[in-house]
Every structure is written in C-alpha cells, then in structure tokens.
C-alpha cells in the first residue's frame, strides 16, 4: 500500500506541471480525434472484429475527455465515469465477440457486407 501510494506521489513529482499548462482543449482535441478515427474506422472497415475494435477506440476517446474534464474540475467523477465506460466496453466486447462468433459460424466470413437480408 505504501509503495503504491509512493509511486503515485512519484508520478505526481515526475509530471509536476499543473494541467492547465497544457490546456483542456489539447486533451479534448486528442480525444475528439480518437473518437473520429474510431468512427471512420467503424464506417469503412468491413471486418466485424475491426469494427468493434473501432467502437472501443471511440470509447477511449470519450474516456480521455472524461478524465480531462475530471481533472479540470478537480473531482473524481470523471474517473468514476471512466470506470463505468470500462464496464460498458467490457460488456460490449463480450456481447460483440459472441455475436461475431455466431455470425461467423453462419457465413464463414467476418465481413459485415455478408449480412444484407434487411435490404429493400
């Protein structure tokens, strides 16, 4: 326990800069860019596993924004929310991978294009 505490204090010492030095907007830009990257990946990649990976990337973008806001407000709520984001991401991963396995069994391919039964 002490060691862990110590290490966090070390981390604080290692990066002594107060966050506003690198303004919120920097982190938010990175988070938005990650989110958009995930979005683009989701829209363009045909492999279902990669699509779900991209959703995880979008989660990451959201998580980064939450942490940044939490730091800005000096509260722990942002980190708490990231925990819940993690929960949802884990649940999503479980379901998504189960679905992928199921769909792969049916069509022997991972392509999302293979499922067109809903076309008009």
């Amino acid at each position: 326990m002490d060691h862990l505490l110590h290490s966090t204090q070390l981390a604080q010492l290692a990066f002594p800069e107060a966050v506003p030095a690198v303004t919120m907007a920097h982190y938010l830009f990175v988070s938005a860019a990650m989110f958009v990257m995930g979005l683009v990946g989701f829209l363009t990649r045909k492999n279902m596993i990669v699509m779900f990976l991209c959703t995880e990337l979008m989660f990451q973008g959201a998580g980064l924004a939450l942490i940044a806001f939490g730091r800005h407000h000096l509260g722990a709520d942002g980190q708490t929310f990231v925990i819940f984001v993690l929960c949802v991401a884990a649940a999503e991963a479980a379901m998504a991978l189960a679905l992928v396995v199921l769909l792969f069994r049916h069509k022997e391919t991972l392509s999302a294009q293979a499922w067109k039964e809903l076309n008009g």
Partner: protein
Amino acid sequence: MDTIISPIALYLICVLGALGIAAALPRRNKALEITGGLVFAAAIGLAVLVLGLNATESGQPLPNYFFYPFAILALGASARMITHPRPVYSALYFILTIIASCGMYLLLSAEFMAFALVIIYAGAILITYLFVIMLATQAPSSASEQFIDETDSVAREPVISCVIGFVLLAILTTAMFRGVSDLPTPSDPETQMALAQDSVLLNLPRKVDRILDRAGVLQDHERVARNEDGTAAIDIVNRTITIENTDLHTVRLLDSDQWPDKLAAGNLDRLGYNLMHDHPMTIEIAGIILLMAMLGAVVLARKHIELEEDLKAAQARKLGDSMSPTAGTGNA
C-alpha cells in the same frame, strides 16, 4: 493570432487528416496508402505545432512536453489501427493507443485509471479480441500466404466516411476551443488541487487514526476528534489536527509542523470514496450489465449440436457403460 490561425489551421489539419486517412485506408494500392500515411503524419505534426503555439500564445506556462509524444503516439497508433489490413495488427495498435492514452491519464493525475486501463483493456479485453480474431480467421494457406481477404484489404466508402468524420472533428474542436475558454478555472490550481485531494480525509476519520498511529503521533486512548457530523476534526488549510483522549475526555491540537508526511489522500482514496459514496446505484447497474452481457455471450455463442435419435441413444448407452463396471465385457 490565436483567433485567426487556430480555426484556419484547425480546418487545415482536419482536411489533411481526412485526406490522409482516406488515402491510407486499406486498398489495393500500396503507394497511395503510404502517401496517405505521410499526409496524415503531416496533419499530426501540424496539429502538434498548432497546439504548442496555442499553449504559448495563451500565456500559460510552457505545456508539459510529455503530452506531445503521447498525443502523437495515440493518434498515430489509432490511425494505423484503422488502416491496417490485418485485424491482429489492428488489435495490437489499439493496445498501443491505450498505452498512449494511459500516459495522458497519468498527466491528468488519474494514476489508478491509467493502470486499470492497461490491465483491463490491454490485458483482458484486447486479449479476448485477439482470441476471437485467431479463432474466426482461417489460417492462410501456403499458396495465398500474402493474400489478405477482400473483407480486410479494401475499405468501403472511405471518402464519404472521412468527410463525415473530419467535418465532425472540425465542428467538435471548434466548439471545444471556443467553449474551453468559458470553463471556470481554479484560481490557484495547485492549492486547490491539494485541498481537493486531502479534503477526502475529513470523511475518513479511521484512516486518519490509523496513519497517525503508525506515525507515532497518537498516545494510548487517543484518536482524531470527531465533529458532530462524524467527520474528522482536521483543518486542512492550516494543517492542524484536533486529537481527543477517549479515556480522559481531553482534547489537544496538533500543529502543522507535527503533520505527518504520510497523512495525505491519494488518487485512489478519492476515487474509491467517490465511487462508493456518490455512485452506489450506478455500481449495481454496472454489475447487472456485466452479468447480462455474460449471460448473453453464453447464450449467443453456445454451439447447438443436433444429434440424431440413435446417436443420442448411443451416447446415453456409452455413458451408462462407463458407469457400470461390467458393461465392457458384455459388449466384447
């Protein structure tokens, strides 16, 4: 300069990023992919430059230079992740993205979340993904070792998706740069931060008791005095501690120079307290979501084995045989 350059530079970054990603997305044209990657790298460079200039312009102290490598790493890895034709590499690049963002978490003094992210995401979830990728992809035969399935090697509608995505990015960032300036900033961030960090100690009197005891400050029958609402009687600003003797019912004040070094609330204390004290119901809901996800995964991925009637009978007989010791001889 900020007001003129930022939006223009920002939109330029977005356009460059869109061009780069659109070109770099998997297609049967290696040269274009590489060009796209270079353009995207240029976009990231420009972004870092603009962000750095922005930080300088805003009169703040020089930005933490650790932010830039992590940002470059995160964006580069995520770009590579969505452009790489092989899912396994995508997953690995995603791990890199996570690690980079963990660095930024550390910069944002979310140490616990940083390590938890590495453990949960990189350690657990991504490994599951890798398992599934391995499981669901046929091993390429020797004849087509270099051949990648069309599903992975050609992206669909890259241009329109990139336009949508990066227009969205432009809007979001414009809004952010305008909105961030409206956010209330703590007057003295460091003090405020320390106060915010340690104020959680008020709610943890027994932890304070324990730390003081270990530091050797307390004598027998002594403990931190409790306020009427049960919080510890600690003055965080002046760093004094009121200690009472439960036996003699006397009270003494501990000066700030006697404040033990160990008496400080870490990130974990605050996070744990916040989680348990402010969001107990959400934890329950999260638990239910996870449980349902587990059940759902089991139900979905379960393999339906259809057995013929006689096969079932044979299976049952086999089971019966293995139970009874004499069955083997009868068959022979």
